[in-house]
Structures are given as structure tokens and as C-alpha cells.
């Protein structure tokens, strides 16, 4: 076994830990307490990075004339917490396993088979990596020295990304921010009107 393969295998065995130095989330976070999933704080941080790639932060374009603030993304809304709670409480065991495996395989897989591993510093680069993963039809040919078949890895990673995207979108649209600032939800909506012109009306 050459040195390169050995390193990759070590990375695989170590699961998500190997990418730790690349994580730039700053102060150490406390892991979300879970009942079924076993994911340490580093994997939870990686999940947060994936969610932040799916719904990125944006520029704060609000000023005196327009209060629109599109800066909030998955990171500001802490959507990884919602994703973890939903996967932990609301999914069947086999989906939880696929989610968990996929999350753990994400870094080793991209390290082994992609030009640049996930995560990169630039959001655009991360987006390109995840998009490529989600759209891959066939797994790459197995590399010598890597025991887990890339087909299995890719299957779990795609399942993980699908689940994560679903809950990131749901968490974003059902967030207090989205439901107060973007599309205000009214607990007491007033009279029902059965026929109103859409002219000038916010689509919601």
C-alpha cells in the first residue's frame, strides 16, 4: 500500500474527524443532544456547513427605503439543529442510518474522488461539490486500498444530502424569520375573502 492510499484509508476510518482542521466555525460548540443518532460536535458542524451551502447567507440589502433583509441563511438560523431534531425524532431507523453514514462519508469520499474535498472556504465551491454529488449517476471506480465501495458511499451521501436539503428548506420556510419578515403568518388572519385581484398582491 502506498503512502497516499494509506492516508486515505486512515481518513476513511477516522470518519469525519479528518477534515477537522478545515472547520472554521470558531468557538467550540456544544453538540445537540440526540436520542437515536450518534453524531459528535464535529459532524454536527459539518452538517451545519452543508446546510449553509444549501441555503447560504446573503447580503443585507435592507436600507431606509427597503426593509428587505435576505442575509439570513441556514447558518444564522441554526438550521442544523432543526435538521438534527427532525432526523433524530421523525425518521425511520434505516433513513437515520443512511443520513448518519452519508454525513460521515462526505469528507472521505470527496477527498478520495474529487479534485477538491468538501468543505472549501468559498461557498460557490462547496455548492459545486454538493451539486456534483447530488447529480452523480454512477459512482467512480473504486480506488485500490479503499474498503468501502464507492457505490455504497455515494448512495448514503445522496440520501444524506436529500434529507438535509428537505429539512433545510422546511426549516428555512418554517422559521420565525421567514414567517414574520418574508411571508408574515397571521395567527388571526381577519375575514376570508373569496375573490381578490392578484394585482399588486404578494404571492403567498
Amino acid at each position, binding site marked *: 500500500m502506498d503512502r497516499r492510499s494509506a492516508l486515505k484509508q486512515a481518513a476513511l476510518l477516522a470518519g469525519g474527524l479528518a477534515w477537522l482542521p478545515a472547520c472554521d466555525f470558531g468557538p467550540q460548540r456544544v453538540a445537540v443532544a440526540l436520542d437515536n443518532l450518534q453524531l459528535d460536535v464535529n459532524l454536527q458542524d459539518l452538517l451545519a456547513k452543508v446546510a449553509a451551502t444549501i441555503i447560504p447567507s446573503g447580503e443585507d440589502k435592507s436600507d431606509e427605503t427597503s426593509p428587505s433583509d435576505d442575509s439570513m441563511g441556514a447558518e444564522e438560523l441554526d438550521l442544523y439543529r432543526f435538521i438534527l431534531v427532525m432526523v433524530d425524532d421523525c425518521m425511520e431507523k434505516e433513513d437515520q442510518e443512511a443520513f448518519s453514514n452519508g454525513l460521515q462519508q462526505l469528507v472521505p469520499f470527496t477527498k478520495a474522488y474529487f479534485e477538491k474535498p468538501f468543505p472549501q472556504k468559498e461557498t460557490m465551491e462547496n455548492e459545486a461539490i454538493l*451539486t456534483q454529488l447530488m447529480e452523480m449517476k454512477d459512482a467512480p471506480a473504486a480506488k485500490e486500498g479503499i474498503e468501502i465501495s464507492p457505490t455504497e458511499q455515494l448512495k448514503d451521501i445522496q440520501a444524506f444530502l436529500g434529507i438535509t436539503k428537505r429539512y433545510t428548506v422546511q426549516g428555512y420556510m418554517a422559521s*420565525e424569520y421567514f414567517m414574520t419578515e418574508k411571508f408574515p403568518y397571521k*395567527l388571526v388572519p381577519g*375575514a376570508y375573502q373569496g*375573490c381578490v385581484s*392578484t394585482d399588486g398582491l404578494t*404571492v403567498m
Partner: protein
Amino acid sequence: MANFAIDSKDNRTYDAIVIGSGISGGWAAKELCEKGLKTLVLERGRNVEHIKDYPTTNMMPWEFDHRGQIPEEIQKANPVISRCYAFHEDTEHFFVKDTDHPYVQDKPFDWIRGYQVGGKSLLWARQVQRWSDYDFEGPARDGFAVDWPIRYEDIAPWYSHVEKFAGISGNKDGLDNLPDGEFLPPMDLNCVEKYFKEKLETQYSGRNLIVARCAHLSEPQAIHLEQGRGQCMNRNLCQRGCPFGGYFSSNSSTLPWAMKTGNMTLRPNAVVQSIIYDEEKGKATGVQVIDAETKESIEFYAPLIFVNASALHTNTLLLNSKSNRFPEGLGNDNGLLGKYVAFHIYRGKISAAYDGELDNTTVGRRPTSGYIPRFRNVYKQETDFLRGYASGFGARRHIERDYDGIGQSLKDNLLNPKWGNWRVNSHMMGETIPKETNTVSLDPTQTDEWGMPLLKINVDYDDNDEKMIQDFFEQFTEMYERAGFTDIQTRDTGQAPGLDIHEMGGVRMGKDPKTSLLNKWNQLHACPNVFVTDGASMTSTSTQNPSLTYMAFAARAVDYAVQEKNKLNL
């Protein structure tokens, strides 16, 4: 000495006992208390006080950990309630968990229960359509079950009586197959619903689309304000319990009203095991109760007993009330108790798209929908199946969002939805024919935590039901096509009986004690001081949501019972 007094029989004796505090028990309690009878209301579940015990009522969507979804573990443990449309994170606490109250399914039956003060009146869909003589005359005309011992004219004043107090929003549509009632202003049909109404009513004779009558205070009157209830705010979060009392429930309306008379004693956590029958007196004298929490056994006494334990549980209770005189259950001389159970068919659904009215939409929420009264076999038999179905109809403007991809483009798409076309939906509410083979009975060996035998349910669809479902699909496909709707999709949910939550019968009314359990006053033929005025009493089901009829039966039966009591006949 004090304890002695509390335990004395006198202190456990009332003028009347009502078993159950749901939609019909609440009515029995209100009417009895208003007429001056000291009334004990027994409820097997916990107390739920109006507003105070609606923990989720003012929560925002994002305040629910799972955004409304029921966690997997709870769903797995409770497959029956998990199939109910109203079982969500915000209403979970008002449903009986499958695991807490087991029953035996000889055939699949989804039994949805609300064991608490107020029962399922907190959770109901609040649809209140009157029956007409085309419904009451069904069994006699078509030769099934037994003839109803009453007609529309017998119950019409009692429909009015309960409608005025409960508060019903509706339009006077002038239809002979769905009589008008005492209505507060109707809710609106939207533009596409109005369009379909116009198409339907010009293209067919006898097919109408109306806005469904619903138990909401669209414009509260003095009698509603006196109950402490206010205007419906169209929140459409009804099943959480309404802080405005905008819709009718026992909790917001009849029970507090009964309490105000000073004549009601409400005892939650009281599991009634049986009705006590005294052979010498030839009547029921009281009830045997187990305290749900302490498991202590207590007897309560009254010369008048109303059974409103919910359709199937009323059957359990009567079947379990055995004595020398009634070895097969109270009032069960003919062996028909627990038989001829029926329900409503909710299996058929149909949806479509409509590409008109694209300059218009709806604003706000509406706690009701459109309604198409039964049009099949109303005036005469015209199909190869008996009876027919009513249907809901609703239209809403679709909002399109592009969920493709990830990153900034996805975010932009989520923030910039577009108007789609309109989507329309209907679901059927079909009448089933009560049959001797559709039964409930007591399991011979298994009992629950309180020593009650488990109920065995043996209820199924039949060929008539299957034909009716096909007819619904055919007729609605044609009606949709003629209205220019596209992308028409039919769906048979395949759901088990029971999920309609319109289970009825087992203690049916009738003229003849040989073929029925109750007379025209909802009084047991063989034990006249016991009245059954909930869903168990139904001789046939017709298509209308049944609660309004139970309420009217309860009020009517109390009126009769008190008259008889005053004449010393009871």
C-alpha cells in the same frame, strides 16, 4: 362523621346521570340542568377547561419542535390515530393513544377517540347539515335496516333549538334534500367554487353546490355572548381548542352553561363500567364507576340515566351492563345490541386543476368548504347501488415554488414564489347500509386497565360501498370535465372503516321492540329510564355529518324525559 356523610348514598344520588361529556352528553347535561335537575356528568377522561387547557392554542408554527409533525416513535406506537387527518403536534394531547386503550379488530377498524371532558367536540370538523325526509325515509323506501320511528317534522324544532344556541353559519339555500336552519351569516365561496356551482347547477338538475353549514360564530348573537363566546376569527386552528369560543364545543358552550345553573356536578376520571338494574323496581337505578386514577369503585344513583359515551363505547357499556333480567346486556331482549353498526365512506377523493380566474385569488383562511348534497337516488332509485354520497368541494390558488438545486438560486426561488393555477378537491361522504354482520361485541377474555372487557369490532365495506365509490369517481370526473377542469386525478385511499369518525348504530331506534333497542324518544324499549342519544342510536347513517342530529336527539329526549318524570311516568 364528616367522612360518613360524604360516603352516604344520599350524597351519591342525583336527579339524573349523564355518561359522557362530548357533543351529545354536553347537550343532555345543559338541558337537564336548565330544567332544574341535579345532574351528575361522568367523564372517563381528564378535565379540559375551556381556554385554560388549550396549551397550544396560541402557538406560532415555528414554536413546534417538529413543525407540526408527530415523531416517528409515537406514530409507530399509535398507528391508528396517526392515520387521522387531525392528529398533529398541536392536537396530540386530545387524542386517545392506541396503546392506552386497546381494542380488538376482527377486521381493520380505525377507532378514533377523545377521552376527556368535551370528548371529540374539541376535535370535530364542525360541519352541521340537517337531515331531510329523503334521509329518514331511506330504510323504509329502500328496504334495509328498520324504519326510522321519526320523521323530519319531529326533529326540525330541535334542530332549530340546538342551532340557535350552538351558532351555525350557513346560507338559506332552499334545498328540499338539505333543509335550511337557523343561520348566522354564511362564509364565502371563492371565485372558482362559485364558477363550479354555476356550471353544476346549469348542466345538471338536482346537483347543487353550497357553502357548508358549520358551527362557527360568524356573527355572535346575545345568546352566544352570554356563553362567553365571541366571533370566529378564521384562524382555522380549531382542533387546538379556540380561545375565542369561535366554534361550538361542549367545553366552550354547553358544559359551562350547565355549570352556571348550579345543578351540574362534573366528575372527570370516572370510568363507568355498567348501569345498575334493579329487578324489583324494573328499572335502572344508577351506575357502577371505577375512578380512573385510584381504581376505587363507586356507585352513583339517579332515576334518569343518559348514555352518551360515544357511539361504540355506548355499545360496550350496555353490553357490559348484565343482570339476571338482561344477561346479554341492558335492554338487549332481541339480541340486536351491538349489531347493524354502520359508518360513512370517505375513501373516494378527486382533484384537478383549473386554468381560469388567474387574475384572482383568496385571502385569509376559512374554517369550512363547499358542499355538494347527495344527488344520487334522492327522489327515486336510479342506480345499481342503494343510497348515495354527499361531497366536500374546495378550490384554492396554487402557489408555485421551484425547489430545484441548492445555493443562492434555491434561496431566491424560495423567496420568490409565483402564482400557479387553481387546484380543486372533492371527497365523498357515502352512506353505508347497516347490516347484522357489522357488529361490535365484548371480548370474552381480555379486559382493560379498569376491568372493562375490550371491544371487538367486526365492521367492513360491502359491494354497495364499492359500487358507490366507483360512481363517485365517474360522476365527479364527468362534472369536472364539463367544468373544464384538467389533470383530473382520482384516489381511493383504501382506508379502513372508522377513520371517517362517523361510526354509528348498535343501539338503533325503531318502532318495534323486536327489531330495535330504542323507541322514538331514544329510550330503551325494555328499560325506559335509560336514554341513548349519541351515535349508537342511529338507525341509518345517510350522508350528513352526524353530530348536529345527535345534539338535537339529546335535547329532544331530555325534554320528553322531564315531561314524563313530571307526569310520574318515569
